[in-house]
């Protein structure tokens, strides 16, 4: 076992444990906090994969913005959460069966793929961040998806403000 594998296993255990808590805990504020733990686990994995920029963006955007927004929304709708009542639909066991089936079929399909047991990877170029920046804005790479994503963000911003502000008379 290399140190990287030990780090991976610890992080994976924490991530899966907190993900299970996200979907099973009663208290919604706790669920949002467990989601933050899972997102931190993913950030550690990105760092382990030598995707430094993605790891930082994961912490800044996911934990700093999205998770905080979840906590705000939970607190704004707090009165409704009946701590005593059931938090899951009556047919939750069929949801569990479907999830286990999806997991099993994903693993079966992936294990039949020839690249599944790849152990070694080519070295990451020194200037991978420069390459990423150039790929995002170069016309023969990903400038169109990048611009579409920015238009999507802008329209989502306008739409969210319009929907949330309500019609005040």
């Amino acid at each position, binding site marked *: 076992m290399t140190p990287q594998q030990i780090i991976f296993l610890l992080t994976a255990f924490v991530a899966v444990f907190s*993900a299970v808590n996200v*979907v099973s805990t009663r208290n919604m504020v706790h669920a949002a906090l467990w989601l933050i733990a899972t*997102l931190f686990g993913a950030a550690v994995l*990105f760092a382990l994969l030598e995707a430094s920029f993605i790891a930082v963006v994961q912490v800044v955007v996911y934990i700093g913005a*999205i998770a905080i927004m979840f906590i705000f929304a939970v607190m704004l709708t707090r009165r409704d959460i009946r701590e005593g009542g059931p938090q899951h639909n009556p047919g939750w066991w069929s949801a569990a069966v479907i999830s286990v089936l999806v997991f099993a079929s994903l693993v079966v399909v992936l294990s039949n793929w020839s690249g599944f*047991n*790849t152990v070694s990877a080519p070295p990451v170029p020194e200037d991978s961040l420069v390459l990423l920046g150039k790929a*995002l804005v170069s016309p023969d790479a990903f400038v169109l998806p990048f611009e579409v994503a920015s238009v999507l963000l802008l329209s989502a911003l306008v739409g*969210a403000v319009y929907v949330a502000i309500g019609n005040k008379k």
Partner: protein
Amino acid sequence: MVPLSWYLILAAALFSIGLFGVLSRKNAIAILLGIELMMNAVNINLVAFWRYANPTLMAGQVFTIIVFAVAAAEVAVGLALVISIYRRHNTVVAEDLNLMKW
């Protein structure tokens, strides 16, 4: 080095847990939390494939960034809808919202 299969199995597990959350939870905000878990699993897959296939091609990381943008947009609109519905109907339980059910 960590085998690629470990990342793929972890991402599949996180995706399935998120799917369970989406299918079984009553609270609309909890459903959105499940969707976040699923998107996170997809991101882990994308970055792992980038690392193990060809790190000089940045497609995996670029798509991860686009998934970040889509997740932010989805959460903004989703939570705005939940808060607006909560204001009008005083509930965030997904099965009570049957106004458009025919």
